[in-house]
Structures are given as C-alpha cells and as structure tokens.
C-alpha cells in the first residue's frame, strides 16, 4: 500500500527528501492547472509551479495537518500566482488595437445576434484571455476563483487569507473593472 500524505510529510520532515517526490507527482497536475489560469507562456507556468513546490518544501514544517495537504498546497499556489500577477502587472498592458480578426469577427457576430456567437469558439476564448490580462491582479484573482472556478466567498477567503467582507468588496470591484475593460475593447467599434 502506498504511504499516505501525512506519512510522506513526516518522512520528509525527518530528513528523507526523496519522500517528497510522490507528493509532487500526485499534486503536480492540479498545481499546473492553477498556474495556467494566471500565466499563458509555458516558461512562466513552469516557473510558477517550481516556485510553489520550492515554497512547499521550505515551509513544510508549518503544515499542521489540520486540513488536507492539498488545501494547504492550493493556498500556497494561489498566493504564488497572485505574487506573479503583481510582479508582471506592467507587462500586461495591452493595446486594444491588437484584437485579432477572429476576435473582431466573433464580436461582430455577437452584436448582430448574441445567440449566434458560440461560447466555445476559439475567438471567444482568446477574448476571455485578453480580458483577463487587462484586469488588475486582485480583480483577476477574484474573477478566476469566484466566477470561473465557482468557489464560494468563504473558500476564497480561506485561499487568499483575505477577510470575507474584503473578498465581497473586491468581487464587486472586479466585476465593475471587467465591465470597464469590456467597454474599452468594444468602445471604438460598437458604442
């Protein structure tokens, strides 16, 4: 039988670094999925993932085992992604003239008939990615967790370390910011 997470963690804390590898292998897909929500380039995603695991290894002694290891790790991953967003804030400023033909076409279809523009279209996905990159770090984090990953305010509070009222306030601001960004994208063409 494979050792459990607490057994592996206890072994690592006793100095058996090799016991960390099964933990890495088990939770690597989840950490990659989280990192890909906040970074697009493969190199950036890999950097985030490595950073998450380095932090997990260094801070393992602070894991008290009250909650599952996965929750503790995901909290670490969300914090690392947020740090990444803040560090790369300036690089994300995009010019709105950069809309691709496919994105413009999708918006044209949406304006003509909102139901005709498919949600699953590649252009819609590109537009979503563009929109997310325009958001400020807290807005992007909140929209991702609340709207896309469908987490509750309480869960977000636990993941981010922000208080419940702060999460609510930031969610309200994030939605407004998103609408503002959408208006910026569509202003020239449709308004």
């Amino acid at each position: 039988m494979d050792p459990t997470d607490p057994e592996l963690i206890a072994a690592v804390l006793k100095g058996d670094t090799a016991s960390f590898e099964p933990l890495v292998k088990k939770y690597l897909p989840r950490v990659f999925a989280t990192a890909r929500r906040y970074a697009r380039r493969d190199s950036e995603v890999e950097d985030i993932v490595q950073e998450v695991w380095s932090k997990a290894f260094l801070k393992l002694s602070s894991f008290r085992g009250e909650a599952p290891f996965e929750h503790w790790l995901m909290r670490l991953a969300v914090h690392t992604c947020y740090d990444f967003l803040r560090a790369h804030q300036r690089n994300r400023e995009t010019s709105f003239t950069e809309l691709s033909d496919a994105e413009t076409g999708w918006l044209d279809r949406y304006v003509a008939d909102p139901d005709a523009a498919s949600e699953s279209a590649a252009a819609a996905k590109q537009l979503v990615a563009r929109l997310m990159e325009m958001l400020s770090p807290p807005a992007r984090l909140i929209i991702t967790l609340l709207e896309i990953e469908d987490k509750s305010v309480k869960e977000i509070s636990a993941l981010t370390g922000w208080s419940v009222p702060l999460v609510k306030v930031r969610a309200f601001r994030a939605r407004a910011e998103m609408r503002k960004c959408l208006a910026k994208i569509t202003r020239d063409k449709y308004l």
Partner: protein
Amino acid sequence: MNTTELQKKLIATARSMAADERVPYAFEKRIMARLDAVRPLDVWTLWGNALWRAAVSCVAVTLLTSAWMLWSDHGSSTHGDFSEELETAVLVAADSADETW
C-alpha cells in the same frame, strides 16, 4: 452593446474551458533536482559545525601555548632542580617562624 450580457457570455466561455492539467515529461524530477539547491539551512547543524571548529582552534592554541612555555622554560632555566626550588618555597614559612622564636 450590452456589456453586462457580453461579460456573462465571456465568463460562460471561461467556465467551459477545462482546466489544463498537462504536466511536462518528468517535471517532478526537475523539481526534486531544484529542491537540493533550496534545501533549508539546519540551524543546529550549523551551530554544531561552528562548535567543532571552535574546539579544534582551542586545542591548537592550547598545544601551541604549552609547547612555547615548555621551550621557553628549558631555555631560560638558571635554577637547579625543580624539587629543590619547591622545597625552598614550601619551607619559607617554617624558616621565618623559627626566626620569630
């Protein structure tokens, strides 16, 4: 254009995108290799190493000082036997006591 409706549509699009859980080949090996570089410093090990180094230095200083004392005594000794000197020193008090009588 109703941006609120467009926002809802785009969020629905984002939700429909499945989380990408692909992992590059043998990425866990890369992480494990990196962990060797970020291994936390063990304070007790550092302290122990420092103590051992200090102990070796102390022993070396003691040996050098002893050797120096030994050699300098050999070179500068003008008196006779050590036992004679000891006897004189011990009996000084007795001699002075006799004089008092």
